[in-house]
């Protein structure tokens, strides 16, 4: 398993709180076709937020759409409280094949969170005020993921990593037969191999 798509080195950082009906997402473009096994987000805990959930979703017009294609959960109470945060590993319940060039979204939520018990997503910005990750944008939903819009300036994106493995086509179920066919003596002839 190798790191495939990512924005994981920020020149400066900001924080977005994940709580209640306010969900946040970072979209990304799959730069190759691969099976994703897990993702990582850079986060920090406040209080006891309990379960942290991240879903992989498709996108439309640059924002998440539809249900989770894959989902991963972890114990939010185990996340560091250090201000610099840490890489939180979330393993998908089942691997999901990503198609090259397609834009997906990592949707994070803390169902039981509140202002005292939350996970913050660490965002990255650049000193040059450029878009730090051109393959996607940061998004927000205020209605638990029903509707989405781009959120914040384009100069900041959520820190994330998507890990995966090459898609291996199982050829054992594919049988090919090359036949020679001919017409002769008013009959159709064929060779089976």
């Amino acid at each position, binding site marked *: 398993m190798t790191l495939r798509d990512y924005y994981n080195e920020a020149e400066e950082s900001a924080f977005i709180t994940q709580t209640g009906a306010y969900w946040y997402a970072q979209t990304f473009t799959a730069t190759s076709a691969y099976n994703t096994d897990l993702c990582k987000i850079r986060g920090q805990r406040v209080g006891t937020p309990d379960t942290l959930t991240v879903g992989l979703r498709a996108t439309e017009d640059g924002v998440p759409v539809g249900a989770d294609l894959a989902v991963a959960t972890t114990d939010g109470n185990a996340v560091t409280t250090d201000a610099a945060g840490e890489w939180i590993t979330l393993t998908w319940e089942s691997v999901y094949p990503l198609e090259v060039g397609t834009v997906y979204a990592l949707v994070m939520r803390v169902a039981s969170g509140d202002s005292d018990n939350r996970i913050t997503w660490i965002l990255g910005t650049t000193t040059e005020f450029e878009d730090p990750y051109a393959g996607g944008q940061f998004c927000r939903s205020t209605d638990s993921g029903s509707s989405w819009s781009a959120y914040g300036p384009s100069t900041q994106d959520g820190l994330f990593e998507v890990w995966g493995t090459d898609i291996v086509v199982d050829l054992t179920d594919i049988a090919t037969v*090359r*036949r*020679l066919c*001919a*017409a002769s003596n*008013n*009959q*159709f002839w064929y*060779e*089976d191999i």
Partner: protein
Amino acid sequence: MAQGSMVALAASVDDIDTTDQLMMFEAYQKVFVVNGSILRVADFINTQLSTSAVAASASLAPPLHGTVLTGATSSASMVCDVISSATGSAYVYGYVTSGTFVSTDTVTGTNATGSVTEVSFALTAAPTDGPHWYSWVPYPGGSSGSLPEKAYIGCLYRGRAVLAGNPTYPYQWYMSRQANPWDWAYMALDAQSPVAGGNADAGEVGDIITALIPYKDDFLIIGCVHSLWVLRGDPAAGGSLDEIDLTTGIIGPFAYCWDNQNNLYFFGSGGIYRMGPNFAPPENLSISAIPDLIEDLGISQGTHRVTMGYDRIRMGLLISVVMLSDGTAKNYWYDLRMGGLFPLTFGSNCGPYSLFFYEAQDEANRGLLFGGKDGYIRIPDDDEKNDDNGSEEVAIDSWATMGPIQLGQDADRRGRLQAMTLTTGTDTDTVGWELFSKETAEEIVDSVVAGSTAFHSGTLSAAGRIQRLRPRTRAAWLALKLRNNTIDETWQFEKGIASVRPAGEM
């Protein structure tokens, strides 16, 4: 059945006429047979279901192409491809995606279109695996148009079955719906619609169609008697029909082949042509070596069949002109490495009616296959010294002529041949040599072609370097002919060195 052995599809016996022109092309894991009014399908992929009532009541419909069918007892499912009848007893052919149907199954499904969409029929026999043999007709049910009454030319292009060679409308081409060779209802006004020349924006060609030559999904070359046309893209989705050349056509549906550089070779009105990628003007390859090739061969479309094949192993083209009445053939080998055109002869039983490069999985069967008059398929074999001619082995009559060679220092002087050293290859059995000398180059060529008696001749019967020969002569021009026409023999020639001295003015 072992690889390399062929069997007849029992249902096809006497159902096609191989004395008439016949073409076949592969599509959707089936073979479509185009044989005049005989249009058939050899189906290698589908399973056959049998029923005595494919739509037993007015509230039921026969399955459509693409309908998913499920067996109630077996839970097996298939995707319906085609049916033999829309009413009463019928065979339903489809690709089984899961399970195995059983004879007690009631098969159900739901058609995507139609006023009645429910499908349900009971099987009357166990399902049958392929290969199957059935008539190629429009999808039964009355809304799939009609195939041409006769067709002699066919191919697959952009997922469409393409037909031409209808004697009633020889300039017309016909295409089925994309991905559905059973739909011939032209002008359905969608991008995959069945389409014919007379009904398309691209239009008909104004010449009699003799060949259809698809190139991937990019374009379809339509060869005619006196002209070449190209159909770019899809005729139902903005495709265009343009002329490539109005000075030469293609002599028949098999008179072309491609090489591995995307060059198209074809036998046209003036000989053998090569057309490079991107529709470069056709170049006549035979005009300099054999200016009157068509006249020399006496080719007529009614009496001869011209086939061409690209041999990727030997890097050349075989061009075969077979007399339909007796199978006698005149053949040429065009060597792509040297650019030379060499005549070839085979026994009368193995004149190639068909040429096809077979990329067999077994290397022993891989190569350019010759379909012979006697019904056998033959393959070139480097280890053989004779040609197979059915019940007998025949010697390969092979020869090469070097010359005319000028012996004098210039055209006004003679030379004296003092000695000659010939070196044969190590696999040589024997090879005869003949020397011709004349005062002009034309006389030399005439003597060789006429088979005149040489002034010196002999036989080399050893491999490797030969002792010096002393066939002395004084002349302006010289030619050396090497030949072998003996059973179980072969030969190679490495080099020849001659010792020549000036012999005065002419």
